[in-house]
């Protein structure tokens, strides 16, 4: 089954006032199919359109034209969000709430039964090593700790498809390894993962396939095992050949 599909996806942002409208095309006609249980890594330079693509997939921005679907349903559909989990690049949370409160809030939105919500939240906090800090307000947290709360919220709903935007951003080496271990355990559990990252090592270790996005176009799609030599060299060669 296809887990994620984009057909001729175009996203154009309009900025400025009505007398001085400016259009910027972030995604130009992307076609992509990701099978269920596959781990897909999206590579691209800064500003290539990776975050816009992931935001379109999770329904935070809307396609200008084309179609996007998750598990056969239109992306952004409320029902489909029960089956997805999303970690933005550098997640932020309401500053005066505690990790326990914010995760309980998300658990309620996920419609988890009232009886098991706390148990699920505590298990997720335990997994990311924040159980002891569950009653501390989030304004006291460092960037790395907020990232770990972000990881904890991924684990609440037993999602089928995961969208991870730079999941190891801001993490110390040990936490980054823990994050990679969590992703690998999700892969082992047969989850579909869409990963945006600049970490080539992470891609090589985790992903089955990669796509290279350049100036809003998907210029390459390949299985990781078919890449001989360094992934970094492969990526740079592709981007340069496309003309940065």
């Amino acid at each position, binding site marked *: 089954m296809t887990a994620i599909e984009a057909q001729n996806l175009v996203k154009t942002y309009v900025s400025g006032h009505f007398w001085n409208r400016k259009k910027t095309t972030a995604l130009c006609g992307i076609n992509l199919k990701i099978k269920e249980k596959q781990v897909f890594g999206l590579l691209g330079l800064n500003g290539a359109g990776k975050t816009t693509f992931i*935001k379109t997939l*999770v*329904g*935070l*921005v*809307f396609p200008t034209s084309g179609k996007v679907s998750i598990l056969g349903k239109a992306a952004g559909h*409320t*029902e489909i*969000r*029960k089956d*997805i989990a*999303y970690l*933005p690049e550098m*997640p*932020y*949370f*309401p*500053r*005066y*709430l505690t990790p326990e*409160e*914010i995760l309980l*809030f*998300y658990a*309620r*939105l*996920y*419609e988890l039964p009232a009886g098991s919500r706390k148990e699920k939240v505590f298990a997720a906090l335990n997994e990311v090593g924040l159980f002891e800090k569950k009653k501390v*307000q989030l304004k006291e947290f460092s960037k790395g700790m907020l990232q770990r709360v*972000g990881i904890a*919220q991924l684990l609440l709903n037993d999602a089928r498809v995961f969208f991870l935007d730079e999941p190891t951003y801001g993490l110390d080496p040990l936490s980054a390894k823990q994050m990679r271990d969590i992703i690998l355990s999700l892969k082992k559990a047969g989850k579909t993962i869409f990963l945006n990252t600049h970490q080539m090592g992470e891609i090589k270790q985790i992903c089955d396939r990669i796509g290279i996005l350049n100036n809003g176009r998907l210029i390459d799609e390949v299985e990781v095992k078919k890449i001989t030599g360094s992934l970094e060299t492969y990526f740079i060669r592709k981007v340069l050949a496309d003309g940065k």
Partner: protein
Amino acid sequence: MENKKLSKIFAVAQNVLNECVRHKILNILFIFALALIGGALLIEELSPGAQGRTLLNVGYANMELFGFLTLLLSLFIITFEEIEMRTVWLSLTKPVSRSSYFIGKFIGIVFVTLLTLAVMSLLVMSLSLLSKVGLNLSYLAVVYAMALGLIITISFTLAFITIATNLPTGLIFASLLFLLGHLTEHLKVIIANPETSVAAKLVLTFVYYTVPNFALFNLKDKIYMQESGIEPAYLLLITLYALVFCFIFLYIGIKAFEKKEL
């Protein structure tokens, strides 16, 4: 199904309430409001012959002002965190519709504002009891009408900050509408003036009927002037008036939020 939707709406509302009641700026504003209301007792002592009017005047004026400031600041804090700090990204990728989220936020801000108003009115009433003013039940109607006015204000402020491209613009427009809403009674006088041109009359009549008329919710002056209670039918009428405006503004806000790219 409907229960699940309601549960999500109240989860959002509870979140907004928790966030606001812990916010330092709002706490300071609240303490300041209580101190000013308390100060009204002193002013009352210094105004012999006012027979409690000073206490009530200052008390209610502060309640309205700080109620407005509370809702404005709460909306600023919540929306700033949602949009500028992107906290909304994680909430809206969960199975909650944008309309439920919007309504939840509205209810949350209404809770915060009513809570502030309730504590302030309790203080005003306690001070009235302690002083020679005494307690009059019709003052509850004053607070009720004030709350209705503030709820309308929340609905259009929320709509404006959703439609506007940035937060300050939305808040400025909402404040202007709040101000205009307090002046609509004066528009009547201008419209009735024979020297007003036909075009101006048309524009002003349009404004008169489309902008919420906050004078309807000012029961304080009515009580002073009539020296009698307020008719229940009047309270019902202004409740319906407030509901209609809230519905219109919430509908506009929800439609804008559903199309808003985050």
